[in-house]
């Protein structure tokens, strides 16, 4: 069973507001991913980290999101100015390494009104 912890479970924001969510990866997992799942079950990779360093991120994340994974603190993903199209389930996952399976948290469901 996954021990990835995501908070909050639900987040409601107005358009233009910041939206911040957090993730505590499983202990000993240096690799962290963030995915966005929309209401049509489409998953979008957002960003991944190895330890504190960004490995890859998509253009949207670079332009509109702020993400970090500091040592000894939860990872975080923050939308700087929420848009209606950002309403989705945000999933964090961690892994022991490049070739291994991912363990997901329960997600943060964001609604942008």
């Amino acid at each position, binding site marked *: 069973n*996954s021990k990835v912890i995501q908070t909050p479970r639900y987040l409601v924001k107005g358009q233009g507001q910041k939206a911040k969510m957090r993730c505590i990866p499983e202990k000993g997992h240096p690799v962290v*991913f963030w995915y966005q799942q929309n209401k049509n*079950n489409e*998953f979008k990779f957002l960003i*991944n980290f190895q330890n504190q360093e960004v490995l*890859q991120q998509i253009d949207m994340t670079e332009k509109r999101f702020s993400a970090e994974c500091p040592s000894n603190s939860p990872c975080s993903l923050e939308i700087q100015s929420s848009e209606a199209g950002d309403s989705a389930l945000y999933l964090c996952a961690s892994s022991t390494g490049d070739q291994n*399976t991912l363990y*997901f948290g*329960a997600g943060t*469901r964001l609604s942008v009104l």
Partner: protein
Amino acid sequence: GQQVQQSPASLVLQEGENAELQCNFSSTATRLQWFYQHPGGRLVSLFYNPSGTKHTGRLTSTTVTNERRGSLHISSSQTTDSGTYFCATNSAGNKLTFGIGTRVLVRP
């Protein structure tokens, strides 16, 4: 880029029935994983199965990499199996490409 197609889109079973979910992917340079998503949202890893057949409980995963397909077999379904099943493939970097899932409903 990598594409993943799942079928059927949805499935209704009577408790006790078996089911087979299909996954087709576009590249042979891939590793296949199956996930189950609870109605509440949590994704649970079921199988990491690059090739061959693996079993856990009532679930069996079979991947035929050179034919770019995989399947998930549920035997003797139970109501607690209801949810959405995703297959996903990954290449270097472990970035996953997901299918859009098979929604399973098991009726008592």
